């Protein structure tokens, strides 16, 4: 067998990346990392008793309402009318179902993992949040991406962590907050990214800074490590991608069909 040298081509599907564009796209990863970070920090505050559930619930409610208004304001209600077709009544109903179920199950959640050791719960939550980050839909078209699985893992982790909180109201608020930050917030982000890229960059930077600030109050070492991770993802990784792109060497072209030239009869004897 051999190759037809005339039709051989190299790097047919290779794309020319621009540094700024890659940095902009890495914003999605940064955002999701920050979401997880914010969630964990909030849980930490709740567990330590530094954050009252009422306060968190109020803040979350206000930000949700703001986000809801913003969600419609970004595209002037076009997406709601044309794409999803959801009415405001359906939204309200979903919200009520969330609230009612979470509130109803919060006593159960509170006692759910009583007899299981705290380390097991932490390990399970960490694993689930990692799975959430792995399977999240960052906009790449890959087989591993499953937004359902990623969201479910996040909910599972939030339920696990919420069951460690001191009271059932804490658990309720924690799960609600997890719902907002893992389900609603990425939807708003996606829309912002598509409609107003400048605004998106600003929101991302602000969010990252807020997450870093929150982490810094818990552990300064963690904050430094997290900051370096964010920097690496948003600056170093795009640089590496563009540098390594130069070394890409994909060959394309038809394979010649193998021809048998020798006399086969001696094999047959």
């Amino acid at each position, binding site marked *: 067998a051999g190759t037809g040298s005339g039709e051989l081509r190299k790097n047919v599907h290779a794309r020319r990346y621009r540094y700024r564009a890659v940095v902009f796209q890495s914003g999605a990863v940064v955002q999701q990392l920050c979401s997880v970070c914010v969630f964990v920090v909030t849980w930490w505050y709740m567990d330590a008793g530094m954050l009252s559930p009422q306060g968190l619930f109020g803040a979350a409610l206000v930000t949700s309402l703001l986000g809801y208004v913003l969600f419609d304001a970004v595209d002037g209600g076009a997406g709601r009318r044309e794409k999803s077709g959801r009415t405001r009544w359906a939204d309200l109903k979903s919200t009520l179902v969330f609230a009612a179920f979470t509130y109803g199950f919060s006593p159960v959640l509170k006692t759910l993992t009583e007899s299981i050791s705290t380390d097991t719960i932490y390990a399970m939550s960490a694993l689930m949040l990692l799975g959430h980050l792995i399977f999240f839909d960052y906009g790449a078209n890959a087989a591993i991406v499953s937004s359902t699985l990623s*969201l479910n893992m996040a909910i599972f982790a939030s339920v696990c962590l919420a069951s460690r909180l001191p009271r059932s109201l804490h658990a309720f608020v924690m799960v609600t907050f997890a719902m907002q930050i893992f389900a609603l917030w990425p939807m708003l982000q996606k829309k912002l990214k598509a409609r107003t890229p400048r605004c998106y960059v600003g929101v991302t930077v602000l969010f990252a800074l807020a997450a870093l600030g929150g982490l810094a109050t818990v552990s300064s070492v963690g904050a430094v490590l997290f900051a370096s991770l964010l920097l690496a993802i948003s600056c170093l990784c795009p640089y590496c991608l563009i540098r390594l792109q130069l070394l890409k060497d994909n060959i394309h072209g038809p394979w010649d069909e193998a021809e048998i030239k020798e006399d086969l009869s001696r094999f047959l004897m």
Partner: protein
Amino acid sequence: MVLKVFFPSCCSSAESGILIGRWISEQNSAVILAVVHFPFIPVQVKQYLSEVQRVTKVSVSVLGSWSNSKQEKEESLSEFLEDLGTIFSHEPWIQISKEGDSKFWSCSTLQKHSNNPKEEEIILVYYDQRKVMLSHLHPPLATATSTDHNADDASKLSAVFDTVAKSKILFMTDRYDDGPIKLTHWQSDGVEASIIVELMKQASVPACMLLTFLLSLISGICRSRVLKFWPLSFLWSKLSTCEQLGHRLQHLQVISSNKKAQNQTQLMRKANIFVSLLIDVALGILLMSWLYRKNRIGHLADTLIPVADHVAEELQDLLQWLMGAPAGLKMNRALDQVLGRFFLYHIHLWISYIHLMSPFIEMILWYVGLSACLGLTVALCILSDIIALLTFHIYCFYVYGARLYCLKIYGLSSLWRLFRGKKWNVLRQRVDSCSYDLDQLFIGTLLFTILLFLLPTTALYYLVFTLVRFNP
């Protein structure tokens, strides 16, 4: 030449009379088939014999006389017997006589027309008439014509067999018949038993008819629609007594049916069922006679309540152990407590029920014991039902545990599919991917988490009660 007389052993105690049978002249032997008793009219005897001869194609004739005198030998009788030889002319005339209880018979032959009255040797051969008749040797074999000496002997014997077998019609009448001739042969022995058998045969037909009618009545009641409604039919299928009674009813129907069994297998089946039924009933009555003596039922009832109490105590201990931290397992405390209290309450209910019943248990057992007359198996079935009813709470626990566990496993398996963003496609019988709404996902995952963390508790309860149920 030796004269051989084949004498049926059943006639050895017959009263005096004349011997009838076949004379096989070429073998110089006489096969005696029956004894005709006094009084008889010689003409009628001859007529009868010729009729027999016509039907059986065997030359039956009067061979001699038989005297069985209980008292002293009377001269006149022996003379009379000798005179008979002149009426029934047969050559030679055999005279066999037996005196009282002595074991010695005298046997002599009379040859009137012979000029040389030499002393002949006589061999008296006893034979069992019934066995000879029923044995399948008598059709003369084709090989009997061969010149071989052994075969010749065989044909000699087979002639005897053949004679007995062919003269079946002779055995149809006996001395109890009203005919002019009284006979003794194998059929006349044990005639009382055969009369009883005959009577039973006669009686069994109306008995069977009555039984069939009663059985059809009972089965009709059993099949009526009132008993077929849901809770009742479910109950019947669970009680082994009802199953056993149903089997018994079928067996009785098979036995009492008027139809004749078509082949040997069915006949054997019927007989088998009949015998098993008889043995069963006999054993049942034996059990009953044992039970109702010396107030054994009272003792039984007295021991039953403490046993039930003891079982309940054991179960309570088991539940207390489960409500703690059994084997160091990490159970969900709240669910554990709920389940444990539920089961404890159940036991409490059960025990109070048993104590409420305790004054009546002896009476119930007394009446239940009566059912043993229907057969041992019925009694055993009722016993098994009683034990099942007394341990009903254990069964209930098992059912609750199993149902809860089943629900949990089923829910977990479908929620696990939801967790992965898949669903079960019923039409194609496979797992498809599916896009769920946000609220569906949320509630599904919430339930999944809860069920997952409660699974060990339920599984433990299920395991323990399954072990208790199948390994009490």
